């Protein structure tokens, strides 16, 4: 029934029909009556140990995949050659091409576990976390600015990015990874990393200039609910915010039951990151500075005191009566709404700082103030470094405000009140939770984290195992990685998915173990070669009769170009970097502060600042997702602006100069060797005869053109390294060759 009807119902015109036929009896108290096709949907069934298909093959993944292929009469592909394999694995785990030495070592390694060793080596490198963190950041709608009009910078958001990288590199168990992101502040309040992890629910776009604060708050809660439902559970909860889900057993009340876990959250943008000892040291240092400067500061305070009070009063008095009340209360006594008022207005008032106020002092006082400022500065050497802080979420007390089902998700149209709870289909009662011991939190999210990672949850392990498969193969076992519902696709290999989910748990939720498992299968190591007969049977390669070739992602393209150019700056972690924008690009609102040093700009793409309203143009053109919502699956488009960016931007030309420099450094004036070196660095292989001849001819004609241009006094683009005695036109032709290697299909496609 569902297979036939469900899909047709996606048409808008049929919605009315669905509402009467397929939905559970609306979100009223009592036992909802979910129809059979919802209750029996595969994703809600317990993960079951599948029967292993009878097969001679040793690897369970291959057994499952081969069983399906045999069923359709399709042979799997042969094993890919070694060069292809090491390139595939290195792009996959590092987002970079292998070095020629790495390729050679693998090609020459005759041991039976040669590839397994490559996988282990790649997983042990910090490059691995930098690559795979980007996948998670897509899901987390990670950005470092607020969005909306002003798109202000969130100065410490990057610590969450580093948290993800470090978690992956240290193979943090996935259950712990989930728990930290949902409730790290409640579960491990003394672990700064666990508190930074709560940044997952802090990456919403936020309107600092909102006129209606309750609406602003509700929009944030909607975003959190949508994202949590989508990322951890693989369900389209967001469809149920206005009405019961049209297809899945997600009641409208379930949406708000999930939201109720978060109704008490507040931003926590000053998570202290020092250890006890560092903190004590810092306090000691701070007190030294305070002691030494007490007299100066008290004089400065005295000069400004009246101004400060005035400015504050003026600012507060300009605001509405309710805002004024909020300001006059102690932090602990403010209601939830007053907290919102205070937060927003305080934020708007921040620019009234001392330095500005001093400008409005009478001249004599102003001069005195400036003198004192200078005196104070002389003690800067005593001052400890600014306190490092992270941003995330927390709660401000154990009592949470009521959560209501909202009519059409409208904050001003509350319906019945709900308690925190899970999918009614799986667990109809309210969630059991207890306030955190320190009395600072409701404990709601601890309960949610426990349920998400509990042994009975049928979704969490399946969803993540499928995501890992999706990122390895470019397609999941379920091709809609964030929609395991009735409108999502069915798993092509349901038993394999269950087996992977169980293995994932049995391995202690080890993501690295999953990589090993998948990559050491024949299925992963098979060639990507096309075969007509197989394609006739399975044109979309759903059954994996070959490895699916595909274009590299924008970040991988940029990083790989930097790498083969010999310019990639491997510095790990820290604040994000602003690489230069293409010539003529407008300056993003919120700022784009390009460092002077080229080397500082040439860091991996995962460290490129993510401004929500203005993604870095090259990455955006190569389908880096919008950060306004979670992205489980990127588009992979091919467009003319991409070609223009790789062809004409100063960046790629610079990288071509770098690659040409490396070529000439190794090959000198020997053209055969130049070509061999170029192919080795860019493609990890030797050119064939046709390629060599073609490039040699190109060198000839191109040098002629360049010589004419040089004679006419036109500028030339020269390599980073110019060997002694080489003419400029000869060197410029090598830059052109290098540039076209970087632009070529072989460079930007993985297979």
């Amino acid at each position, binding site marked *: 029934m569902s297979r036939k009807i469900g899909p*047709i119902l996606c*048409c808008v015109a049929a919605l009315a029909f669905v509402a009467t036929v397929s939905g559970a009896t609306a979100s009223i108290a009592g036992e909802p009556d979910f129809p059979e096709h919802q209750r029996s949907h595969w994703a809600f069934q317990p993960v079951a140990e599948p029967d292993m298909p009878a097969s001679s093959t040793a690897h369970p993944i291959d057994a499952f995949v081969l069983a399906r292929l045999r069923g359709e009469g399709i042979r799997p592909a042969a094993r890919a050659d070694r060069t292809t394999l090491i390139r595939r694995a290195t792009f996959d785990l590092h987002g970079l091409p292998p070095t020629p030495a790495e390729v050679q070592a693998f090609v020459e390694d005759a041991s039976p576990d040669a590839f397994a060793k490559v996988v282990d080596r790649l997983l042990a490198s910090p490059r691995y976390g930098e690559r795979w963190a980007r996948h998670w950041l897509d899901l987390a709608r990670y950005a470092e600015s607020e969005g909306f009009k002003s798109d202000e910078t969130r100065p410490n958001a990057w610590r969450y990015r580093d948290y993800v990288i470090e978690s992956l590199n240290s193979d943090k168990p996935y259950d712990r990874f989930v728990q930290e992101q949902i409730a790290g502040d409640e579960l491990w309040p003394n672990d700064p990393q666990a508190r930074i992890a709560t940044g997952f629910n802090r990456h919403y776009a936020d309107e600092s200039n909102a006129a209606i604060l309750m609406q602003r708050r509700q929009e944030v809660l909607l975003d959190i609910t949508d994202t949590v439902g989508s990322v951890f559970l693989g369900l389209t909860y967001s469809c149920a915010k206005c009405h019961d889900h049209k297809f899945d057993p997600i009641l409208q009340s379930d949406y708000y039951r999930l939201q109720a876990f978060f109704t008490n959250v507040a931003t926590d943008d000053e998570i202290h990151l020092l250890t006890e000892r560092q903190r004590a040291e810092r306090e000691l240092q701070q007190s030294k500075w305070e002691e030494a400067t007490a007299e100066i500061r008290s004089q400065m305070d005295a000069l400004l005191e009246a101004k400060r009070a005035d400015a504050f009063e003026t600012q507060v008095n300009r*605001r509405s009566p309710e805002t004024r009340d909020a300001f006059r209360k102690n932090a602990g006594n403010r209601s939830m709404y007053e907290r919102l008022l205070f937060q927003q207005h305080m934020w708007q008032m921040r620019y009234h700082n001392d330095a500005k106020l001093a400008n409005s002092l009478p001249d004599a006082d102003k001069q005195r103030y400036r003198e004192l400022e200078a005196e104070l500065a002389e003690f800067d050497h005593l001052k400890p470094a600014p306190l490092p802080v992270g941003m995330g979420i927390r709660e401000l007390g154990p009592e949470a405000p009521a959560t209501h089902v909202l009519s059409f998700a409208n904050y001003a149209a509350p319906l019945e009140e709900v308690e925190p709870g899970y999918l009614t289909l799986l667990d109809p009662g309210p969630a059991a939770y207890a306030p955190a011991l320190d009395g600072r939190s409701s404990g709601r999210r601890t309960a949610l984290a426990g349920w998400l990672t509990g042994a009975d949850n049928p979704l969490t392990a399946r969803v993540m195992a499928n995501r890992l498969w999706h990122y390895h193969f*470019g397609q999941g076992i379920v091709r809609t990685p964030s929609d395991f519902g009735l*409108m999502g696709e069915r798993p092509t290999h349901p038993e394999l998915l269950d087996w992977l989910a169980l293995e994932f748990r049995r391995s202690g939720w080890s993501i690295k173990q999953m990589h090993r498992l998948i990559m050491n299968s024949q299925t992963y190591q098979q060639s990507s070669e096309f075969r007509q007969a197989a394609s006739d049977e399975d044109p979309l390669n759903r059954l994996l009769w070959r490895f699916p070739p595909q*274009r590299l992602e924008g970040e991988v393209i940029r990083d790989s170009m930097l790498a083969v150019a010999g310019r990639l700056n491997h510095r790990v972690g820290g604040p994000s970097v602003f690489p230069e924008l293409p010539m003529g690009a407008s300056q993003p609102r919120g700022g784009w502060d390009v460092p002077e040093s080229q080397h500082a700009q040439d860091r991996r793409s995962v460290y490129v600042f993510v401004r929500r309203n203005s993604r870095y143009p090259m990455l955006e053109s190569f389908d880096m997702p919008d950060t306004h919502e979670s992205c489980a699956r990127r588009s992979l*488009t091919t467009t003319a602006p991409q070609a223009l960016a790789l062809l004409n931007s100063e960046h790629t030309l610079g990288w071509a100069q770098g690659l040409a420099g490396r070529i000439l450094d190794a090959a000198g004036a020997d053209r055969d060797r130049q070509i061999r070196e170029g192919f080795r660095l860019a493609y990890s292989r030797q050119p064939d005869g046709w390629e060599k001849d*073609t490039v040699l001819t190109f060198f000839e004609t191109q040098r002629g053109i360049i010589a004419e241009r040089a004679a006419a006094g036109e500028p030339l683009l020269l390599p980073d390294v110019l060997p002694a005695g080489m003419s400029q036109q000869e060197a410029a032709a090598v830059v052109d060759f290098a540039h*076209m290697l970087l632009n*070529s299909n072989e460079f930007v496609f993985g297979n």
Partner: protein
Amino acid sequence: MSQRASVSMAARSRRAFLSQASGGLGALALAAVQAQHGHAARDPLAPRDPHHAPRAKSVIWCFMEGGPSHMDTFDPKPALEKYAGQPMPESYGRPLTAMPGTAHNTLMPSQRKWAQHGESGLWVSDWYPHVAEHVDDLAVIRSCTADGLNHVGSVCQMNTGSILAGRPSMGAWVTYGLGSANRNLPTYVILNDEVRINGASKNWSAGFLPAAYQGTLFKQEGAPILNLETPDAIGGRQQRGKLDLLAALNRHHKQKHPHESELDARLQSYELAFRMQAHAPEAVDLAQESEATKELYGMGEEHTAMYGRNLLLARRLVERGVRFVQAYCGGWDAHRKIEENHTKWCGVSDKPIAGLLADLKSRGMLDETLVIWGGEFGRTPFNEEGDGRDHNPWGFTIWMAGGGVKGGQAIGTTDELGLRAEESPYHVHDIHATILHLLGLDHLSLTYLHNGRSERATVNGGKLIEQALA
């Protein structure tokens, strides 16, 4: 099977059905699934058939950013004279305003002089004397409503249907629905004046559609598109030599992978880029226009030069097949000193817009070009700071002219004060449904499956503004 068929509307409406099946699919199904998933078939800009015969081929949207006052331009409110200096009658309530408490302020009549124009006798204030000459072509929709109170949300909604960023803009939906009519130029172009646009690129974002559908902001100087120009250190001949090498290497590589259609698509993208390098500069080369034409758009006068240039550019672009052009103007956020502010921006936009209408008409292009005027909302009848007006999303005016629009009429009304839409209110979704309709697209059928929902440009709403259709 051809690319064209692979993305036809028929295929699209069946896509979700087909994507569920797991075997025995026909070729049509496959290509449709591939197109949806962006993993195989791949010319996202291939031309596509509309749902019905289009009335307009292109849109030029004169976006008056900041929110122009309807009661000082196209929606006269004589009753404001009567209430001048008094607060709104209690019966109007006190809407929550962008600036706290302004709804308690006194009502402020328009200081404009009003006259009826054309055969239709539509009212236009003396702020728009040149546009007034074209009233018989305008369908003035006086009963528009929107949801947002502040600029960034409202500009975003006027473009994407939602006050929250992240959804595709109208231009992106149109590009997705119709593909490109001239592969040598972007299909969706944004032209800006010197005022920064609130929310910037979010307003021409492809949202959850593939990035290929997003708008292209033209640069004001030099080549209009980023990375369009061959760098000086390379030059044209040297570049051609490089491209020939690239094509040779790519073709050789393709021989080893003859069935990977994506490799061809990428090869073609370079040829297309090369053609764009030739055509885009030609499209923006206003030296090809006569002095009389430039004068028509007001390019000879300082205050109208920039907007006139942009609208002339817009005409040249739609002439060359660009489907969706937005030309932003202003600056209209007159919380105070509305006389000063609107005198300026009406002055900036009046002659260029009138010039555009006249020019399109004389070239026979007005019938196939939909011209839209309006901001993200209107302004309030009560004053702010004595001489300004606050934001008004509850009732405001936009007008449409040209392709498929019945001119010379006012549609809908606001209440006596101009605060709220009264007769035939039309929400932003309705405006969007109507724009799509005129371009040959049915807003209920133009869908994209995203996170389990068949998303559409009009979100959950949208009805045609029937009265506006010719």
